[in-house]
């Protein structure tokens, strides 16, 4: 034992480490083992990569992976830009009144399932938007309305996440802005910087840590999301978590090791993407610690 080993310190850390060690690391390790040929219920007991090899030849997995990457990236990008714009637009109002924070808090506290349900009422082919379009004489029947749920492009999924995540990124950014104050911007103004220059060279670098870390959380969350694509998406191609869940709970147990392999792959890929994103933003923005959590 090293001589500066502090028993009390590690004792205080141990409850959290036990939870993460057993449930997350242990769970992941057990899942990995099951996907590598140790799935006891099927009598497997020898190392094999065939469940991963099977994923490589699986067209549904390709379609699902591509859809997941695309929807997560698009929804994150729109949420980051929208959240930043909203935060900057509401900055003055937020300083004067707490109501802004409270309002942004509403969509944040609406569970994803409820949000998806509310969206269906609005954007379904016979939803309120379609009825308004009919009343305005734009369409004659529900089928004329563009498909926004269970559609090819995942428009409903993106919309649901944008509605949830724009306020989240705005709140993170507003919290950082409130802590920073506006001295830097005042100084830039006194020195003759234009509006655009103040935004580009002062405000943007200051809020970058909040936007970067918030959008990383958003991307990782949407990438692994289940509820919204389950309610608003198509059965094929579905997002990765939906495919993995369906195969896992398939009545035929033979599907299970492959489903676990898909979930493990999705975890590794998200971790790799998060690492790459942090590296990239560090290189581009010179951020040392992007996490403000």
């Amino acid at each position: 034992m090293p001589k500066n080993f502090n028993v009390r310190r590690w004792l205080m850390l141990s409850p959290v480490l036990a939870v993460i060690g057993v449930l997350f690391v242990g769970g992941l390790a057990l899942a990995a083992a099951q996907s590598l040929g140790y799935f006891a219920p099927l009598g497997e007991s020898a190392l094999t990569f065939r469940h991963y090899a099977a994923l490589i030849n699986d067209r549904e997995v390709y379609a699902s992976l591509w859809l997941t990457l695309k929807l997560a990236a698009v929804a994150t990008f729109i949420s980051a830009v929208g959240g930043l714009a909203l935060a900057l637009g509401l900055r003055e109002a937020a300083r004067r009144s707490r109501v802004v924070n409270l309002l942004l808090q509403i969509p944040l506290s609406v569970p994803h399932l409820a949000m998806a349900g509310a969206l269906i009422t609005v954007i379904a082919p016979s939803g309120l938007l379609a009825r308004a379009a009919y009343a305005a004489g734009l369409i004659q029947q529900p089928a004329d309305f563009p498909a926004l749920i269970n559609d090819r492009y995942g428009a409903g999924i993106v919309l649901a996440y944008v509605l949830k995540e724009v306020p989240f990124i705005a709140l993170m950014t507003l919290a950082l802005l409130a802590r920073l104050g506006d001295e830097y911007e005042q100084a830039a103004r006194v020195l003759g910087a234009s509006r655009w220059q103040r935004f580009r060279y002062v405000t943007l670098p200051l809020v970058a840590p909040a936007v970067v870390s918030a959008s990383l959380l958003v991307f990782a969350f949407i990438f692994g999301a289940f509820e919204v694509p389950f309610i608003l998406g198509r059965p094929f191609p579905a997002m990765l978590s939906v495919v993995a869940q369906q195969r896992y709970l398939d009545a035929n147990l033979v599907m299970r090791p492959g489903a676990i392999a898909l979930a493990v792959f999705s975890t590794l890929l998200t971790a790799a993407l998060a690492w790459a994103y942090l590296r990239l933003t560090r290189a581009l923005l010179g951020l040392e610690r992007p996490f403000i959590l």
Partner: protein
Amino acid sequence: MIAVSGVAVIPLLLLAARSLAQSWFWPSLLPPVWSIRAWQYVFSPTAEVFPALTTSLTIALAVTLLAVTVSLPAARVLAWQEFRGKRAVIFALLLPVLTPPLAATMGVHALFLRYGLTDTLIGVALSHLISTVPYATLMLTGSFSRFDPDYEAQARTLGADGFDVWRHVTFPAIAPGLAVAASFAFLISWSQYLTTLLIGGGRILTLPLTLVAFQRGGDEAIAAALSLVFLAPAAAAAFSVARFLKEEPVGKI
């Protein structure tokens, strides 16, 4: 400002309208017949809504209490001490936040099968700790790091014992952060669908599971009413701590 209020409030109004509409066929813009049938069903003693509400509340409250208790000592250490292995601990905390929980949940499912914890309330509550504990610890670390540990030392010099220091000095200082962390732990647990479905095996019926059954079953009025029942406690949890949010960073649901 007005747009924000609109986007925030309109979905709620729509859910309310949908839950009170008897039959709302194309193309009427407003429901032709209003009815409280859905709400009567939701509150009727024979419906599965009330047991689901109780199950959800039990699990979410237990998870909140557990997550905060487990996180408090660790957050204290992480905020105030520099030590070898600290980066590794923070990395371990970030992993469950940044990766999908599904794979770990599948492993936990196999583990719990072995110990008879699947299909039980305890098993489901334990599985919710995977996603709540990292957030609670990271948020509480933030609260502790904004509090100067020297205050504790001063109180001790003035003769306060360990419990007095906690009760009169440290606790009041981190209470807002504690409230925020607890409300987010509650929200995360309250909203879980997939983890509950896998570990609870469809036997532990929480509100989100019941809601999905109605969403898929096609009774839109009941689904809308249930959505409102589902989001009310979540909103209450969030609102009760909203005034602290200016000082405390927001967490992710």
